[in-house]
């Protein structure tokens, strides 16, 4: 099964979860998602998701100047983002349980 198709559906919740733990800039969010096990996540998908969540008011952003190179644009979760994450978490659990149940049933029937 192609995990990248599944990933598209859950990238919002994954990005929000990563940023909830600690504010992050784009490159950093990509790396944290990969480190958490989502190795197939595409750079462009993460940046697009960050942009959309920011546009939707679920994230705020701020710029941190850097001594070594260009500035970094950090994204932080806000109240709206937390409530989106909470709702998404519930949806995900229900969905995952449903699919788990289906799979268990299939396995039992097999």
């Amino acid at each position, binding site marked *: 099964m192609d995990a990248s198709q599944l990933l*598209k559906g859950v*990238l919002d919740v994954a990005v929000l979860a990563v940023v909830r733990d600690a504010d992050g*800039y*784009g*490159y950093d969010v*990509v790396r944290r998602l990969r480190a958490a096990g989502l190795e197939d996540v*595409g*750079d*462009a*998908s*993460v*940046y*697009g*998701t*960050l*942009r*959309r969540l920011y*546009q939707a008011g679920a994230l705020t952003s701020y*710029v941190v*100047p850097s001594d070594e*190179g*260009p*500035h*970094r*644009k950090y994204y932080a979760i806000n109240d709206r983002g937390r409530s989106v994450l909470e709702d998404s978490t519930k949806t995900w659990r229900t969905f995952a349980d449903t699919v788990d149940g289906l799979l268990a049933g299939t396995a039992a029937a097999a």
Partner: protein
Amino acid sequence: MSAPALTAATQDYLTAVERELADLPADDRSALLEDLALHLDALSGEDDDRPIAVRLGAPAAYAADLRAAAGLPPRPEGPAPAAVGLRERLARLPVSPAVREVRRLLRELRPAWWVLRGYLVVLVACLLEPDDVRDFPVPAPLGNPALGMLLVLAAVVGSVLLGRRTLPRPLAALVVVGGVVLAATSFVLGEGAWSRLADTTAYPPPLPDVPSERYPLLSRYGPVTDVFPYAADGTALEGMLLYDQDGRPLKVGLQEWWDDGCRRVLDQPLAADGVPVQNSYPQAYELAGQGGSCTEALSRPEVPLPVFPAAESVAPDPGD
């Protein structure tokens, strides 16, 4: 905001993605591209030699993923829509590395222009103000340089803020046109101010401070250009030959400017061998060319002749 310093390859990648996003609203496009520029810079710090198109995928694919994830519409198919701007059309033309470097340089110089623009706005306004107050380098609106400093500061801040914002196309075009007009006006005004400044500094010509071929004799008042000898009884003497303490012919410079505005050239007497006698005083001049109100005759300057005692001789009496 400092733009990351990108290599030519990453710059190409950025340009290619920019092309793919050309149809998006300016604020979406610039936000996505700014993120990408920072990302490319971060990737360049990694220990990975693979080309950028291998690591991130082809620019078109990257742009497509970006659009999909950001919830933006996919790129319209087919030929470029007619509404595509000049910038996008130019971006599609193949560019030489030199052009790319120039573009990069111009992009990097933008903040400097923002600062200059703020200063010029105040300066030009003050130069156009019809007063005799000196407006350069510190503009003095209403004759007040302190106010000028404040205004310049405010204008620079405003200009930089304006420069950092992504404006909608018509407004951005207006800003560009305004900038060109401002630069041209400053240039014209600046040139006028400069030539006025040059007018006041060019004349009189600077006085030499060491003797030269042109001005062999200097006094504390400037170059000596003539000598007018008088006898002790006040008789003006002509054609006197003068020598210095070592017996060398005494030479002076020559007069180049005359009060009556006429041009004259030196007319030194010739010796039997045809060589001009350079130490014959007063020097003789003849009119060069034009006649009109110019006359050959030159009057001697007024001189304060001393009055000697009538009975005694000037020289000490050897019989005394």
